[in-house]
């Protein structure tokens, strides 16, 4: 795409309902290929309605398929949710910074996701799975609202079976037939037995969850500079022009969404940022 402000209309090639309010769209990418870094996002556009910033959740090695997992919460995302295959939507991107996957090579990796926050982290798991020997222990700590809200259930179990990662899933509420954990995802941090000084952590979810998890990781000895978080703000232009997503000196759309803890932690304490 030559003009980053101009959407390219692309065809939806697949649609999967993941949970009651989350669905995954596969899209024919602009120009047939769409290389991206795990953690980056696109602006998805419905003509006459508007755009929404959505993280890319597909496999980085499959550049011929663009995949987005989306939660239907606003006008654009609700309409995206009722789009069928062969319909067309606008795409701008990819935008933003990626997860520190190369920095994590040779180290242990702790991935902590809350809710739909697993979607921007799935490309990280794909990338690690493709080069599993390059990493030490890999753990995924995942928190969801209820068992019915757990995303990518089959894939998670397959990754666990294949030894790609250690998996711990917790939910906020469950009936007694749920065999997993109940409680906040922060409770799972105590299950990490890898050397914290040689661990890179990647966090994505509601900001309160990330703050709490980051504190727990620091408590067990993970270094500040090795904690990456994906920030969510009101992204509009995605090119650091409009200022809607400003966070202190940063534009989340361009300088983020992936930041390191020392860069954003001071602004977590600032009200109205």
């Amino acid at each position, binding site marked *: 795409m030559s003009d980053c402000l101009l959407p390219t209309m692309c065809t939806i090639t697949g649609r999967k309902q993941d949970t009651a309010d989350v669905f995954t769209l596969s899209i024919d990418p602009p120009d047939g290929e769409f290389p991206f870094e795990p953690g980056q996002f696109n602006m998805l556009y419905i003509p006459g309605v508007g755009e929404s910033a959505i993280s890319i959740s597909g496999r980085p090695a499959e550049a011929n398929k663009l995949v987005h997992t989306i939660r239907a919460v606003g006008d654009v995302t609700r309409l995206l949710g009722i789009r069928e295959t062969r319909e067309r939507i606008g795409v701008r991107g990819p935008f933003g910074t990626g997860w520190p996957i190369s920095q994590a090579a040779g180290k242990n990796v702790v991935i902590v996701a809350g809710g*739909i926050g697993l979607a921007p982290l799935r490309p990280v798991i794909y990338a690690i799975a493709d080069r599993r020997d390059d990493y030490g222990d890999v753990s995924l700590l995942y928190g969801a609202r209820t068992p019915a809200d757990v995303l990518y259930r089959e894939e998670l179990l397959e990754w666990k079976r294949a030894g790609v990662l250690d998996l711990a899933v917790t939910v*906020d509420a469950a009936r007694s037939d749920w*065999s997993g954990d109940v*409680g906040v995802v922060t409770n799972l941090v105590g299950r990490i037995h890898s050397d914290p000084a040689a661990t890179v952590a990647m966090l994505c979810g*509601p900001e309160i969850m990330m703050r709490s998890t980051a504190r727990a990781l620091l408590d067990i000895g993970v270094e500040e500079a090795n904690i990456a978080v994906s920030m969510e703000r009101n992204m509009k232009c995605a090119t650091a022009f409009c200022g809607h997503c400003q966070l202190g000196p940063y534009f989340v759309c361009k300088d983020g969404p992936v930041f390191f803890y020392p860069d954003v932690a001071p602004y977590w304490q600032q009200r109205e940022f």
Partner: protein
Amino acid sequence: MKQFLDLLAEHSFFRDLPREDLEFIATCGRNVAFKAGTPIAREGDPADAFYVIRKGRAAIEMYAPGRGSLRVQTVGEGDILGWSWLIPPHRWVFDVRALQDVRAIAMDGRCLRDKCDANHEVGFQLMRRFAQILTRRLEATRIQLLDLYSDKVV
């Protein structure tokens, strides 16, 4: 006893407790095991112990007529289960059930209360440790109550 003392000393809850204090309270402890599915505690029963979980996972639940057992939280390896032994009227407030085979150290509550009365320094150390657990659980429960993954604005 030495092996049992080492088990206690290795646990983060007792870490940094002076050896003589550990020996003082170790006589209140014993190894216990619960098969998956069996109850560990029942709401309203006397809370005569707390558990240092060594293996397995247990669910803290509350029964509601017509809704069955509602799961509040799960605890697992390395966690401490139960503080009702410390606070009058010393009765369990929730049901606890083993989700997997659980191996734990049960610390006798009455024995510990007597020891704490006899040695206030040990009592203070235990109280301080339980205060940290209570604080962490309260913080986690408050975050859980926020229902962060809901699409509703709290």
